[in-house]
């Protein structure tokens, strides 16, 4: 059992939990993920690690309340325990030797983009951060990104905060202003990563994306998380989750991510009904 040491809501639909998991905390690196099960009969859900504190033995996760599993997770409070918490899984993001990097985060993907931003910043790399949200109410981790980068550009779809527009516009502008990046790291919705890759391909800038496909065991057993990368079948759980974005077949990944859409919608409604009943 893994105790929830702290829980806070970052915006109306995104929350952060600090979990006591000393073995995981000892080894966690930016880019790696964990799998949790809230209760004994819950689904296994992968989430990328948002932060870790080796001394305290804690690992942070940031989740968006989108489906039945995250709604169920959100019913737990400080002092409660997660039934299962396994990790760190996947390969850590490579940061060695990078001198100048632009990190592009979209929505809740910013939570995953922050640890690598901090790591790069700490090792003396010049980091620019482009973060995008739908609107002002959904903005998270703004100060954290500011503190971990030389320059931060805030974008919102509706212009209610920062600049109006998509992250790709800001990225392209930074490139055109003469910033020569060794690498771009893009973490966010599949469609965002796809378009970031289209921009960087044009300029020949290596781009790393963090993939989050449907997954069950997360240890290299089930093969559910397979992706086509450079024409080869790769498994996000053991080969990734980071891949060369210019080689990823995003259209296929987007199609596969909808495999259980009907089931998920139904489960979400069930979970909502259940929660409503509990409130009454």
């Amino acid at each position, binding site marked *: 059992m893994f105790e929830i040491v702290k829980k806070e809501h970052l915006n109306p639909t995104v929350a952060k939990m600090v979990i006591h998991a000393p073995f995981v905390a000892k080894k966690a690196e930016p880019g790696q993920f964990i799998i949790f*099960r809230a209760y004994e009969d819950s689904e296994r859900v992968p989430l990328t690690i948002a932060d870790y504190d080796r001394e305290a033995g804690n690992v942070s996760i940031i989740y968006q309340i989108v489906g039945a599993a995250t709604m169920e997770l959100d019913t737990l409070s400080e002092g409660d325990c997660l039934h299962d918490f396994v990790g760190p899984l996947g390969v850590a993001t490579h940061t060695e030797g990078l001198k100048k990097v632009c990190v592009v985060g979209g929505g809740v993907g910013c939570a995953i983009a922050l640890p690598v931003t901090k790591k790069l910043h700490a090792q003396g790399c010049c980091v620019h951060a482009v973060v995008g949200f739908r609107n002002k109410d959904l903005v998270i981790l703004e100060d954290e990104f500011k503190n971990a980068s030389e320059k931060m550009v805030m974008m919102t779809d509706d212009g209610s905060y920062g600049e109006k527009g998509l992250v790709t516009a800001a990225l392209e502008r930074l490139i055109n202003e003469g910033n020569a990046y060794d690498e771009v790291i893009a973490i966010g919705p599949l469609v965002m990563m796809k378009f970031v890759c289209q921009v960087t391909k044009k300029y020949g800038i290596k781009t790393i994306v963090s993939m989050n496909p449907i997954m069950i065991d997360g240890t290299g057993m089930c093969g559910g998380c397979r992706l086509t990368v450079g024409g080869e079948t790769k498994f996000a759980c053991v080969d990734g989750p980071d891949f060369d974005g210019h080689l990823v077949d995003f259209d296929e990944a987007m199609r596969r991510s909808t495999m259980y859409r009907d089931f998920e919608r139904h489960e979400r409604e069930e979970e909502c009904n259940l929660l409503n009943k509990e409130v009454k």
Partner: protein
Amino acid sequence: MARNMDPKKCPMPSQDPNVRNKNFDEVALGYTYEMAVSEARRCLNCPKKPCVSACPVQIDIPAFIACVANEDMEGAYKVLSASSALPAVCGRVCPQETQCEGKCVRGIKGEPVGIGRLERFVADWHREHNTETPVKPESNGHKVAVIGAGPSGLTCAGDMAKLGYQVTIFEALHTAGGVLVYGIPEFRLPKTIVQKEIDGLKAMGVEIMTNMVIGKVLTIDELFEMGYEAVYIASGAGLPRFMGIPGESLKGVYSANEYLTRINLMKAYMPHSKTPIKHSKKVAVVGGGNVAMDAARSAKRLGADEVYIVYRRSMNELPARAEEVEHAQEEGIIFKTLTNPVEVLGDENGEVCGIRCVEMELGEPDASGRRRPIVKEGSEFVIDVDTMIMSIGTSPNPLIRTTTPGLETNRHGCIVTNGDDGLTSREGVYAGGDAVTGAATVILAMGAGKNAAKAMHEYIQGKNK
């Protein structure tokens, strides 16, 4: 006691095929007491014991059968448990026809003695009647680590615990049991039986740490730093193989590992499971092993109207246990043998809508000794299906290989061991089961666990002299 000279085995009582193909309850119901005693009296108790030599864990088969014939069921259990840590499991899933029963003298002129069925009966009898809890052996003060709580790891842990070692099993998943819980379905191996065997190990003092992925959370070298004096790697088979044909990433293409894990480990067959599974109408399972049979029969139970086994060789070469093939046929699984898929077809939503296949014929024997399948020119045809399940084997998991310096692996990525005792290229590190052999059977994995336990004991004793 009169010997039973019936040339045929006492048939196994089972659920009716048209009832059981709609539920996940156990198919084979087990012998009654009278059936077991009568079947046991078919054994000739021959002095050469060919059956024993064909058993990967060398159970003294005539001795346990003699106990059953004399109605000493607890005595029979003692004989079994001296050699096998999981008799209730082996009685159900061993390929007896190629092992013990394949060598049975009674099989020359008739059917062999139902050794597997008797083993199962004795183990079940013991479970239902035994009131003693296993005793925790006196500690010898030495610690060993086992990686993986599947059949190989559990066997090794059990044998080491009996010798007085303090054993910790590190399991990657949230439940112990390995393939016995994520792979083999409930209708073939009820999970309560697996749990009971695991509870027995825990009562003997074996510690099982779940949610621990060795190679990630801890390395083998760190296990030694933590005071474990020897390590047994039994991490299992690994990643599923795909055929590399067009369309394998369409929605509705599963690996058998994923399909069975959803159903067995995550209980997707139960009405309120939170893990989704596709409820298909027409399913093609590619492959001919036990895993393929399990996937096909599970698909049928989830309500599919038509389920095909698509296999590139003929019925004679199917690697699955004979009983699984028979059961599958009885349950209405359609065998499309001498058939090989060349493309998965998808509709406008990216969902599977069929598979394009070619007919095959058998040529000369290949390296495996089986006749090589050759494509018949111009034989293409399409099978309409909405789901395709790939069950064509696995390739080894890289997590331990890539994080253990000096651990030798072969070109396939399997861990290399020295002879039968499971010693790897690293001192104090032993390995066995599918991590060494590639996908094989439960009993071979158990045999490897047993041999490794013996070798680890000798190693630690020698070191501490």
